[in-house]
């Protein structure tokens, strides 16, 4: 399929984007050698927020239960690791699989309703999983957390040691691959239909397209990505707590997504990095001042920048290019 001019330009822009992410990631590696454990957590949360963007940003389905998919991946990888499967790449795949299955289940339930009841279903599902994980403490370690995981060195060489170097680079590589794949998926016919569903479901059915299978497929993809994020967190910290499958982690993911701007994969990354960097600094001083700050930021976004940071950046970029274009004519 010969590339049209515009198509080659978008592929070029994607490669540039990926290079930018890799650059920022490696800069983090050199500038903050002592904080690699924290930076790895930023990557696993970024995967969670990316997975949420697929549902909220691309399909227009509001969800406060993404923790269910993230936690499913984390616990699957954790339990597998404790029972002897220690190869990190295999653990990520197990996490992805668990996330996918959970995505299928969650989608099948959530897509039965719309609007507020749908939002409530997402909350009920993550709370149900939270209680189940607590109850099955013999397998999941319950509120004591699942520990005693010792993942094997990556590709047999790079140990997951105290300084977290290999964990971080492994996470960064995973993020780049996932981001590239998602860039492709959102540009596929399937991705366009999802965007269509967000903008006008009636027109989609008037085109003769069934909405449910499309949305369910996106839930599975989103579950896969979130599951990988959870598995990465499990491998890096070698501990899985009940907090990984909770309402708080889901609400935080939504805040980060909106901060960055929904409907833009970059938005998810920008929102996560800024939110967690701020949290790392401010929360250390006083956790409750941090909540007041997040609350204020959220209100400001809704009032002044409803399209989030990346949205406003896009608008800025478009204004600049349009002015240049108009000025140039």
């Amino acid at each position: 399929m010969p590339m049209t001019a515009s198509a080659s330009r978008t592929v070029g822009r994607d490669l540039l984007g990926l290079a930018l992410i890799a650059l920022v990631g490696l800069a983090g590696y050199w500038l903050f050698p002592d904080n690699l454990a924290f930076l790895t957590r930023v990557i696993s949360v970024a995967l969670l927020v990316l997975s949420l963007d697929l549902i909220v940003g691309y399909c227009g389905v509001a969800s406060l239960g993404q923790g269910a998919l993230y936690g499913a991946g984390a616990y699957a990888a954790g339990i597998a690791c404790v029972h002897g499967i220690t190869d990190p790449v295999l653990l990520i795949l197990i996490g992805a699989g668990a996330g996918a299955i959970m995505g299928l289940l969650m989608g099948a339930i959530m897509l039965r309703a719309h609007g507020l009841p749908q939002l409530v279903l997402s909350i009920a599902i993550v709370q149900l999983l939270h209680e189940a994980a607590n109850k099955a403490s013999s397998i999941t370690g319950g509120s004591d957390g699942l520990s005693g995981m010792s993942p094997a060195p990556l590709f047999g060489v790079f140990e997951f040691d105290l300084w977290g170097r290999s964990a971080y680079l492994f996470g960064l590589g995973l993020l780049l691959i996932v981001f590239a794949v998602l860039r492709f998926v959102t540009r596929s016919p399937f991705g366009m239909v999802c965007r269509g569903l967000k903008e006008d479901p009636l027109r989609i059915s008037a085109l003769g397209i069934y909405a449910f299978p499309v949305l369910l497929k996106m839930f599975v993809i989103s579950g896969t990505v979130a599951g990988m994020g959870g598995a990465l967190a499990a491998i890096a910290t070698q501990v899985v707590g009940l907090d990984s499958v909770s309402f708080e982690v889901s609400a935080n993911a939504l805040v980060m997504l909106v901060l960055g701007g929904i409907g833009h994969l970059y938005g998810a990354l920008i929102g996560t990095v800024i939110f967690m960097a701020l949290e790392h600094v401010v929360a250390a001083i006083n956790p409750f001042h941090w909540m007041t700050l997040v609350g204020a930021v959220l209100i400001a976004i809704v009032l002044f920048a409803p399209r989030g940071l990346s949205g406003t950046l896009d608008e800025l970029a478009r204004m600049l290019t349009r002015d240049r274009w108009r000025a140039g004519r």
Partner: protein
Amino acid sequence: MSAVFEVSHLSKAFGGLKVNSDISLAMNEGERLALIGPNGAGKTTFVNLVTGRIPPSAGSVHLAGEDITSLGAVKRVRRGLVRTFQVTRLFPDMTPEEHVVMTILQRLGRATRILARFHGDSAATDEAAEILATLGLTEVARRKVATIAYGQQRLLEIAISLAQRPKVLLLDEPAAGVPSSDTPRIEEALARLPASLAVLMIEHDMDLVFRFAKRVVVLAAGEVIFQGLPAEVAKDPKVREAYLGSYAHAGG
């Protein structure tokens, strides 16, 4: 030639209120029919019934000989019964080209493929360019629909229905809300609809109806009160009364 679209004894009552009662009409391939009637005559209900949006209380609908009364809305579209909307239903953040390409991909069964590039499907993109050209939408093809004129949005709805290559097309007030300066372009587009396509237009603009339709059905209070040639519509006493109410006799 058997009827490509046949509605027999179609009725719909919300509780006691009879909104459509015992409507029957048929259309052959390539026929141009107009469904007119005063406000509240039950036209929109009729469209929602035949497109499967709401279930009928009685009666049946056949498309190309097949009984589609029990089929869902999406299946009816796939069988070739396509409609445009009275108020445009489009994707504000997408471009006209993307709308038509998605329609073509759905027709070709490739609309929900993941391992393909939407903009890379040259067969669909080329066909879309053709359709957009015939409707004069080429120069806005790559602009977001939210930023193009309402008249152009109406044309895009027609472009989409063309791309679906339907057996029967229901035009729900195609000229509604369009400034009179743009109406000629809408009429041009309607004139260029494929000859084999059966078109049922629901419209208020009588000039447009008389120029377009070969046959007219008049609906009043949910009942068909006239079926026949456009020229005879104005003379028919029942139609006059329905439209002009009591004044009809005063003029007589």
